[in-house]
């Protein structure tokens, strides 16, 4: 019983974000409350990945807003793309997009995914995410902080 008492006394100690402004939500055709995303690293330096993994830590607890990652896009709601789109990842990115069932959302995380962040001239770079796919949401930053990512993704999960 001591544990239950402790839980009720302590309450939630993870960071609670401010309530969501309904006016800022996106993609009303997607179901609200849950968002399953397939993460595609299209050529990232892994800075965004570190911040993404931070989102799932107890402090930011992205899953408490109904957002989680999935291994297969077949049962996902969309793609979470990081990094510039390199030539090697061009095809896999398009394959993953084709494998996602409709309706689907594409979210570009980080400056590289949005505007190549000064790497466009690189010989292995094929372009930005929006050069390949219709991007619904851009999360700028190099890298974006976990709280920025959480706040942006909540606009899609509407929770």
């Amino acid at each position: 019983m001591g544990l239950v008492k402790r839980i009720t006394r302590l309450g939630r100690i993870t960071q609670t974000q401010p309530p969501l402004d309904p006016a800022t939500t996106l993609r009303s055709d997607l179901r609200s409350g849950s968002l399953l995303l397939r993460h595609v690293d299209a050529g990232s330096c892994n800075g965004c990945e570190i911040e993404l993994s931070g989102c799932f830590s107890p402090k930011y607890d992205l899953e408490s807003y109904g957002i989680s990652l999935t291994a297969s896009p077949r049962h996902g709601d969309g793609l979470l793309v990081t990094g510039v789109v390199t030539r090697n990842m061009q095809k896999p990115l398009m394959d993953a997009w084709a494998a996602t069932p409709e309706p689907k959302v594409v979210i570009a995380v980080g400056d590289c995914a949005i505007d190549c962040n000064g790497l466009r001239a690189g010989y292995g770079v094929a372009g930005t995410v929006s050069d390949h796919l219709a991007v619904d949401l851009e999360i700028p930053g190099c890298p974006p902080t976990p709280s920025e990512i959480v706040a942006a993704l909540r606009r899609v999960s509407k929770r």
Partner: protein
Amino acid sequence: MSNSDHLKLHSHTEARPDRSSNAVIASNFASMAAALAGLAAGIDGLWSRGLAFTAPGIIPPFGLAFHSSELGSFFTMLVAVVSLCVAIYNFGYAKSGRLSPVSLVIFPLFIATLEVIPLANAIPSFLFFWELMALESLALVLDHHQRVSAQRAALLYAIVTQFGFFSILAALALIGSHSHGLGFSSLRAGAAALTPSERTLAFLLALVGFGSKAGLVPLHAWLPKAHPEAPAPASALMSTAMVSLGIYGLIKFGLIVLAGGPAWWGLLLLGIGAVSSVYGVIESSVSSDLKVLLAYSTTENMGLVAMAAGTDLVMAATHHIELAFAATLAMVFLLGSHAVFKGLGFLAAGVIANGTGTTDLNALGGLNKRMRLTSAAFGVVALSASCLPLGAAFIGEWILLQSLIHLGPAGGVVALAAPLTIGAIALTSGIGLLTMVKAFGIGFLGKARSNYGDDLGAERVGPMQWSMGLLAAANLAIAIFPAALAPLATHVASVLISVGEPSGHASVTSQFALFGLGGAIFPLASAAVLAGAILAIAIAVRFNARSAPPRIPAELWACGARGLSPAMQHNASSFAEPLQRVFSDVLRPKTDVETETFEESRLIISRVEFHSAQHDSIETALYEPISSAVSNLGRLARLAHNGSLGRYLAFGAFGLLVVLVVLH
């Protein structure tokens, strides 16, 4: 997916000229006639007076003597049921020269011999037909006698079976030493006059002799060698009828003629049974050839039967009559269910070998779309063999567990043996479940690992499919209506049991309950609930399908990569790898990793090769030293005959001298 990913298959059976169909038909009708005659004799012996028959002139000076005792009739009936299905199966199997002419002749004879053995009523008749059975089965193992593997398997089988025969001969000579005739009835009277040590020796000899035929550890090694070589219908007969006759001999001479013995006989049987079942199932779980897997599973199941026989002996010796009766009943059910599901398993393996050219699970896969009927039949085998409810073997195991669980406070070794036996049964059925999941999942589900896909048309209903259907129906009958078979099983068990019969009956109509013991199962009700649930799901799926969006064909998701090949699936070896690791002390797997590095740097690997060879660890540890000792002895003997005529004449003269001195 490209065809280069597929394994190349070598034809399992060499092409033979098409035998005249008349010979095939004659052979099959003879087999069927023999099976039907056996069925009639079995029914007659069980439910009416039974027949007695002597032919004094056939093998002089003893003659042949038969009497259809109730125990013998049960085994004859068991053999006849499997034989009948095999005879029907052969109408499909034997055409286009799949069986050699010798096998065509042997088949009906083999069936008749198997049926006659349990009816033999005197030592000479029994031994004559026993040896005949051994020779006929040897000829069937050598169906493809030009294959080196078949020759080696036949040699091993011949050695083990002759070793067993001489043990039986010695046991029967010992038992008969005090009796006045060679008939089994006078044998039993004579056995009562034996001293305890003579009885023990006779029991041990009989255990070795009949255990070798039943495939009990450590004389099991011929099973996984001989079965892949024999044609499938012969394997089906050998693995069901012939091994059951090993158990028959054990029961007949250990339990009935010697009329039971001290509790440690039972404990010995329990121990051998437990080791056989656990070892058999572990070897079975790591086998990647379907026929080898089924052969090891036979050792497992005969181990379970031996455990039931041991429980019977222990309980009888400690005066737990009802528990002994339950164990006997378990033995009857285990024998019956094993005969039908293992027979079906080998017949299905035969269809697969014909259609695809292999029984190697690592080259199979996706058969459920190509051989629907065979896949369904093997599904029944897998369900039955994995000892799950609604599988045939479950009934026998459940009764055996009941007889062990209901043992109250007991003293001494028995108190220790019962929980250990329960543990062995639990381990066996657990690994058995994994084995059957592997056999069905790897062999029948998934994608084809070989390029037989296009050659294999839709499966047509023929004699082979009909016979498999019959056996599958028999499996389901045992599993779902065990109560209907309970009167027969109780009847046989009451004959089998050596000490008295408990009052009461073993069954009520819809439930299957054990008299005296608290347990009951409701297989019919569970089957009805399951069928109802499946029907409900099917209706719901059909109903939902109307409102579902249309299907879109798409490529398999491969994490962004393309071109998944069937070789990337789990295969039989990889599925069994954890088991091989866990039981490496028992299996002692021979694995070898070879790596090649680039010349520039020894740290960068250019090629890795992994070899894994399966072998029978008991065979390696026990048989190889014996065979090398024998060949060393042979080398010594060779020193004596070097081809010199003078030496041979000297031997002759010396021998004559010895004879003269002894006779003087």
